[in-house]
Each structure stands twice: as C-alpha cells, then as structure tokens.
C-alpha cells in the first residue's frame, strides 16, 4: 500500500530511486537556470519589502518563504531532473530462477495449499510474472535441495529433496551461469537451510560480481498448529547401565499448556515415557527424558510426541539420536588421607557396578598406606603417584581428607594438570584436612575446584562442625547425578526425606562458572554441598560433607534402599564421563544423509598427554555390509595433535569408525565410534519460513525480498541491474505529481494568506 502511494506521488516505485542516480538534463546550462532562480528570488524579496512594508515582519517572512518555495520548485523543474538507470537489454540477459525443491515445500501452510503449489502457480510459465520476465530475459529455471539441477518449469518439481543447501545452490548457479550475461538470480524458497553451510562465501562472490539475488519467501514463519521436537541432545557415549538425561527442544504453536507424553525408544523398545507440558507461541522450551542404558553398542534412540489433532506437520514430532553404550571399565584412584568410614561405604556403593573400578590408596599412618583394589603388587607401591604417566593412567581422581602439604609442589601441579591437560575428573571430598582446613587455598588445585577455597583463620583453633539438610538446587534437579528415582518428582521427594549430613569445611561460595547442584541448610548456612565445573579438558567436582555414608547407615534409611549406591554410582559415572584418552576422536555429526560429507577429527597425545603432531593416524570404516575402507587422517596444522579427514558414507545404516594412531612402532591408542547414514528428516525441523535468511541473501547482493503478494513488481525490479548486458536509461522527474501538488499547495496557501491579510 505504502509503495503504491509512493508510486502515485513520485511517479516511480522506490526501487527506481534506489537504483537510479539523480541527474539534470536541462538544455540550458544549469548555472543559467540557477542564476535566473536567484534573480527571481531577489526580486520577490525586494517587492515584498517595498510593497508590504505595513506587514509584520513575521507575516512577511511567511509569504516570502512560500514564494521562495514556488520559485525553487520551478527552478528544479526547469533543470529537467531525471533518474539515470542501468537496465537490461531485452532478451540479451539470462535470469536464473532457483526454486527450492526440498520436502519442506510440501508443508500446507498457505490457506490449505502447499508452499510448492503456491510457488508453482506464481511462476507458472503462462503466469503474469513469468511472461513479464520472459519479455525481458532469457529465463533459466533450476531446482535445488542438496544440489542444483536444471528444471523445465516450476510446475514439474516434486519437492522431494531431503536437505536444503542454499549456499551450495547459489555457488553452483554462479558457476553454471558464469559464461552468459547474467542479470541476476531469483531464489524461491522457504529459506529453511539445513545443510549447515555458510552463506557468507557465495554471497561475497555474487556481490563482487554485482549479481543481485532476489528472494521470494514462501510459507509462514510459524507453523500453526504444530508440535516440533527440534533437537535431541544426548551424550555421545555413556557407560552401560548409566542413567541418561536427554535434553530435547520442543516448539509448539496452538497447543499451549496441553500435556502430552514424550516417548523414548531404544531400538524400538520403549525405555521411558514422560508427561510434558507443551509450550506455546512457537518459542522453544527444553524438556528432559530420563532413561537407563542397557545393551552395549551403538543405540538408535527415537524420541517422539504423538501427533496432535490438526497438526500441519506430523514428521517433526519425532527425532532420533545415536548413543554409544560403552562396556569399558572406568578406573579411578581414591586417595584418602586418613581412615574414615567414607572409604568403606564409597567402595561398598560401587562394588556391584562392574563398569566402575575404584582403586583406593589410604594413608593409615605417617608414610604408611593401605592399597585396595590394585591390579598387581606394583601399583601404587610407592604411595601416591609421583609421575604424570602414573597418575594419568586413571580417568578419575577422588581426593579425600588429605592436607596439601602432603604433596610436593610438582605433585600439586600434577593434580591440576590431571584435570586441565589430561582431561580427567577430579572429585574433592570434605574432611578435616580438605579445602581451606587442609591448606589448599593457594595451591594450583584451588583454581581447579568449582568452589572458592577460603583460608581458615590461624586464630580459629576450634573444629568447625555443622549438620546440614541437603537440598538440590531447583534448576539442577534433572542433573544426571541427582536422579535418585525414575522421575524428577520422585527424586525431589527422596532428596527431601534424606537425613542430614555433617560438614567440617564451611564452603559457601562457588566459582562463577560452576554449577551448584546441592546446597546444605543449617547453622551459619547455606553451604555448598555439591558443585561441578569444567576446567580445561576435564571436570572438577566438590562434595563437601564428610559422611555421605549416613545415607546408607542412618536408621531412617530402609535396608533395601539404594539411595547411597545410586548417588555414588551416578556421581562417579558423571565424574569420568567424557574423559579423553590419549587418542580421542569425534565426527562432525552422528547422523547424516548418504552422500553427505562427514569430517573425522582425532586428537592424539602420548601417555603424558603431550600432543603429538608426527603420529600416523588412520580410520578404518566398516559399512553395514561389513566392507571396510581405510581413510588416512592428516595433521591440521591449526592445532597441535589434531588430525582430520573427510569421508562420505554411500549406503544407509550404521557405520563403525575405528581410528588408530601410532608413532614409529609404538601404538598410541584406538578409538571406536559410530555414525548412522540415513534419512535424518532435516527438512521437517525448523520448517517455518526463514525470512531473515532470505532477506540477508537479498540485501547482501543488492537484490530485494518478495512475498507472493508483492511479486508483481519483480520483473521490472530485476531489470534494474548493472550485471549482464545493460543500457543506460533516463527517467524524467519534472512531471512527478508530487511537484504539481506542492506547487499548487504553495500558491494556494500564499493566495489565501494574502486574502486574509488584505493584500489581494
């Protein structure tokens, strides 16, 4: 509407003004016209001054201003203003029309019609737009989804592409049309790019070539009504039997407040069903599903919400993720500085967990140690490890009630490196020699811990003691460590009923980046009971009570209760989750479409976790049919110890990726992971119109953004281009209706004022 009004007043649409340069084409030199104008202004001023001397100064100024306006308008018109435009030579240029052929164009959000139908009608060969374009250009139609291909017409598309790669499509179109005079590109799409490619590169190239890309957005930004499980986030790998918390992003429109089941299936077997409340307004909300892993190996997890009545898109109610359930044994070292019952009950809690192995080193007297759970007589024979190689063998380290002065300076630094460099998990327990009481305040470990280690005042000779009621922080209730029962609600109730524990270390402040999971209320509180943070490559946790065994022994705890065991198993599993090995590897995605390239990245270090750049690294990929393929990985140079390769799966199914590294004849390690190739259904997620993306494409290349409703001006707009074979065209501005209206308006105003003031 505004654009039409503009065109009515200014004769041309705004784009013409944007594209054109203002020039003056008067046959008389411009200086003469301006001079005449100045003279006319001077005469008018003199005349007003002499003839209307009785007028008040302000009135005279008003009349003079109106007259000046009239003269200025006349001078402007006499100067023959015009817009100089660069327009295409008819039929000399090619216009590329790129139509999105992906499955998201099947969404029927256009008054019951699909986006594809609307696109086909808008760009029908006999339609107004295509006819107008055909008059000016040689039109070439392309279809694009994963790749770009020529198409006869938009009507012939079946909208079956499984992925939209806008960046690749633009780059391919530029290449394809590089040998012809190209006036521009028109992209018809919902903008739902899901290939993860970066648009910056093709857009820069198109802008450099002055090829405008006009975009036509089709679809609604929000699907209404619809429920969408946008994203499932699960750990890459977990230990067998571990409790897993999957985080899912749910978006819903039109069903706000409705309670629906969230179902988790492990290879077709339902392992969890949770009632969730749907958000509203299309804003994403995070929901969590809890389940326990059972069988080892790669597990295909399916998360789904039943299709609700009237949903626009049913396919986005289901999403999948690949989880690798490991059978490995996590070996960790528990070093305790003094005999206490925490040793007995911690070992007892995890005794039945065949995935956790806690090697215990207990200082029973000065320079006397008790070793429990050691592999052979040499392990920890000399007490606490003195070399990095010896300490870094363990994936987790539990530090009990031991004073900092027990360790040498090198050992203290080694403890910090265990977390930051080796990437191990460190758990610091409360005790009379722990935290500030143990003199840990200004040690390297104080930086690692998730809590602020306050020094204990030297004048404070008394023993600090506080009984605290332990409470989970509400925002952490769904943390995997705190899952004492099968649902968060049941877990919360269990936490509420647990007996109090005792603190001998008053820890009150967490580090800025730490997550506080449990707090304790009691005299002088609140205190921090459990906090965790990432530090370097690893994780550090502080558990401040000295007697968690109370949760096993207390008279209020039924004999069959498994709270203590569950808590410790989950805590220790969390402690060592994601702990790297000397060789670790990752894939750019765990689920890809066949034919979609995948990046394999490996990080290689020696037994002391010093990164190696001269290693030989290769991946052996076993496809679902059992055939294997060797892919060498090369050092990236960007980072020490980082090796990469690109590989493209060709068949659907789960592929095993085994990566091995060696240096000379010395094997450095092996790593096995999995990737699933198949239909990832990317087109059904985030399928709303991505207007921002399409606008960006247009703006960065000098094009315009259209909708089906504004499409009628496209043929003319496309004509104003500097790309291809063009001619210069002048468009007069002196006869713009706005000028006539202004002139009449100024003269009328002057005349009526003069009448009012008795001058006419």
């Amino acid at each position, binding site marked *: 509407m505004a654009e039409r009004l503009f065109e009515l007043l200014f004769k041309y649409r705004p784009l013409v003004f944007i594209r054109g340069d203002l020039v003056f084409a008067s046959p008389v030199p411009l200086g003469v016209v301006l001079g005449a104008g100045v003279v006319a202004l001077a005469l008018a001023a003199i005349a007003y001054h002499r003839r209307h001397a009785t007028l008040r100064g302000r009135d005279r100024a008003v009349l003079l201003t109106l007259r000046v306006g009239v003269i200025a308008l006349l001078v402007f018109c006499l100067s023959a203003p015009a817009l100089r435009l660069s327009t295409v030579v008819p039929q000399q240029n090619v216009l590329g029309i790129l139509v999105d052929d992906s499955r998201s164009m099947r969404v029927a959000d256009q008054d019951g019609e699909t986006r594809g139908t609307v696109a086909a009608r808008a760009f029908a060969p006999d339609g107004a737009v295509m006819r107008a374009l055909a008059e000016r250009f040689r039109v070439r139609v392309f279809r694009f989804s994963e790749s770009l291909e020529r198409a006869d017409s938009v009507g012939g598309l079946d909208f079956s592409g499984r992925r939209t790669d806008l960046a690749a499509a633009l780059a391919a179109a530029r290449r394809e049309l590089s040998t012809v005079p190209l006036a521009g590109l028109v992209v018809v799409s919902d903008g739902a790019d899901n290939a993860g490619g970066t648009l910056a590169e093709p857009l820069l190239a198109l802008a450099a070539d002055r090829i405008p890309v006009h975009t036509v957005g089709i679809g609604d930004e929000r699907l209404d009504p619809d429920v969408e499980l946008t994203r499932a986030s699960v750990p890459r790998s977990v230990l067998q039997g571990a409790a897993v918390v999957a985080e899912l992003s749910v978006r819903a429109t039109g069903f706000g407040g409705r309670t629906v089941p969230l179902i988790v299936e492990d290879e077709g077997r339902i392992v969890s069903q949770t009632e969730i409340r749907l958000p509203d307004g299309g804003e994403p909300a995070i929901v969590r599903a809890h389940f326990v892993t059972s069988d080892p190996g790669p597990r295909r997890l399916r998360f789904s919400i039943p299709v609700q009545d009237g949903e626009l898109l049913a396919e986005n109610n289901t999403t999948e993720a690949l989880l690798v359930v490991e059978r490995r044994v996590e070996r960790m070292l528990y070093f305790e500085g003094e005999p206490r019952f925490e040793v007995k009950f911690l070992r007892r809690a995890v005794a039945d967990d065949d995935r956790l192995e806690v090697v215990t080193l207990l200082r*029973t007297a000065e320079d006397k140690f008790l070793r429990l759970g050691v592999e052979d007589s040499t392990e920890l024979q000399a007490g606490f490890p003195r070399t990095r190689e010896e300490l870094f063998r363990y994936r987790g380290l539990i530090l009990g009630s031991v004073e900092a002065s027990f360790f040498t300076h090198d050992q203290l630094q080694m403890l910090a490196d265990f977390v930051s460099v080796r990437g191990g998990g460190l758990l610091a327990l409360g005790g009379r020699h722990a935290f500030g009481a143990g003199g840990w305040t200004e040690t390297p470990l104080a930086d690692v811990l998730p809590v602020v280690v306050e020094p204990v005042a030297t004048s404070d000779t008394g*023993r600090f003691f506080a009984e605290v009621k332990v409470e989970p922080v509400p925002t952490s209730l769904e943390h995997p460590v705190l899952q004492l029962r099968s649902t968060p609600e049941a877990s919360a109730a269990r936490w509420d009923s647990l007996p109090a524990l005792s603190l001998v270390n008053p820890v009150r402040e967490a580090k800025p980046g730490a997550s506080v999971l449990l707090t304790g209320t009691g005299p002088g509180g609140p205190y921090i009971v459990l906090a965790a943070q990432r530090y370097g490559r690893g994780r550090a946790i502080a558990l401040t009570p000295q007697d968690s065994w109370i949760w096993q022994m207390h008279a209020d705890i039924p004999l069959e209760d498994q709270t203590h065991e569950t808590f410790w198993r989950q805590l220790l599993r969390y402690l060592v989750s994601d702990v790297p090995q000397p060789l670790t590897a990752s894939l750019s995605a765990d689920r890809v479409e066949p034919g979609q390239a995948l990046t394999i990245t490996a990080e290689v270090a020696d037994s002391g976790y010093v990164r190696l750049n001269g290693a030989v690294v290769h991946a052996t990929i076993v496809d679902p049919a059992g055939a294997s393929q060797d892919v060498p990985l090369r050092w990236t140079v960007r980072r020490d110890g980082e090796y990469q390769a690109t590989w493209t799966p060709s068949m659907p199914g789960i592929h095993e990726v085994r990566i091995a590294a060696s240096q000379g004849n010395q094997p450095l390690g092996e790593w096995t992971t999995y990737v699933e190739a198949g239909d990832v259904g990317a087109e059904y997620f985030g399928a709303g119109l991505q207007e921002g993306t399409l606008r960006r494409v247009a703006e960065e290349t000098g094009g315009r953004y259209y909708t089906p409703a504004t499409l009628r001006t496209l043929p003319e707009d496309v004509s104003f281009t500097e790309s291809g074979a063009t001619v210069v065209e002048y468009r007069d501005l002196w006869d713009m209706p706005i000028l006539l209206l202004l002139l009449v308006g100024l003269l009328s105003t002057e005349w009526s004022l003069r009448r009012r003031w008795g001058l006419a």
Partner: protein
Amino acid sequence: MRPVVLLPAICLLATGASVSHAQMQRRGLCEPPAVTPPGFAFYFTRAVYSDYARWGRPSWATDCPEADQHFVFGLKRLTNIDAFGLQHMVSLEDSALRNYPFLYAVEVGRMALTDTEAEGLRNYLLAGGFLVVDDFWGTREWANFAGEMERVLPEYPIVELPMDHPLLDTFYQIDTVLQVPNVRQGRWGGRTWEQDGYVPHLRGILDGEGRLLVLISWNSDLGDAWEWADDPYYPILYSNYAYRLGVNLVLYGMTH
C-alpha cells in the same frame, strides 16, 4: 596342712587379693562422658545389651572405660585416625546406633538380647555396621552367643576365618592367633584359658556377598590386654598382639 605348703598358698591368695583390689581400683564408672562432641571420624562404640541377671556391673560394661580409653589412645598413636578419645556406648535398641558403623561387644557369653535389641543389631549389621565380639570363653558361653546370633542373623552361619583373611594384614601382619589371657592369669604367667576355652579362635559371620559383618574373638580377652597394657606385670606379648589385632579390626571395619 604343713606350714611349708600353707605359706605359698597364703602368698598366692594375698597376691590374688591385691590384683583384685587393683582391678577394682582401676575400674571407673562406665558412663558416657559429660560431653561427646560430634564430628570425629571414629568413635570406639561399645554395645549396650541385655544379659542374664547377675551381681555387679552388666556384662557389656566389662573393662569399661579403661580398656576403651587405653585402646583409643593407642589407636591414635599408631594410626592417624581422627578418633574420639573417651568411652562411647550405645544401646542396641537406640536408633543412634546406626550412626556408628563400628561396634564392640564384650562378655557376650551372658548376652540375652531382647527382641528389640536383636532387631536393632540385625538392621545395624545389614545396613553396613561391623561388630567385634570379645572376651567370652568356653563351650557354654559360645553356645549362648551362637544362639543369640541365630536370632539376629539366622540366614548366615558362623565360620572360621582363614589366616589369609585381609583383616589380618590390614595394618599389621598377623600370622598366628594368640590366646590373650585376662589380667589375673596374664600376671601370674600360668594358664591363659578360662573355662574350657583352650584354643583361641577368630570367627566371623559373612553376608551373602562375602562381607564380614561380625568378627568373633573367642577364647581370648583383648579388652584386658588393652586395659592393662601399662601394667609392668602384664606380658607385653599379649598387649602387643591385642593392640595389633585391635588396630587391624578398626581399620578393616573402616575400609571393608
């Protein structure tokens, strides 16, 4: 009776009387201290239980508090355990029992548990508590104790502990099981047994997963050896052994 025979007999009686007198003198009141501060890592906790009625102090209080105090003193000197230094006792009926995972019971030959005590002890042991039983002798007392244990843990038998059990090298390496005599016999240097308890035994009750719930020191008196360790007439051999075994028991109870 000839005077030459009578004289030693009189001396013997006099010596016995003086020892008994000394024992009486050393025996303080077996009562909890005025203050038992919380927060220690270890409390040497004595089990308070019912017994067959008799004169004097009850069975559970034998050698208390000196044995307890002496042992804890030694324990703190020999190890770095943060132990409460005085006597500490809890009834088997008291729910607070579950807050002390190490329990010491003596003279269990005269134990006569009430149903509540039996249930309290059973729950304590199954929850993870560790009971050390000491100072009872002969087949008659054994039969009584075994009968009481049959009430507490009917599903688990009492077994002889092998000499390679980890308990015997937790802190000290113990290669033989000594019979530790009571103070009277220890001082006299004569026989070491009482009643018909000629051979000392270390026995135990293990749960279904092989965890030691109860350690039974039968035909031996560790408590007296702890209590009289500072007596120059009591053989150091026995005190030494009793302390070594006691330290091992505590450390085993805190780690296994």
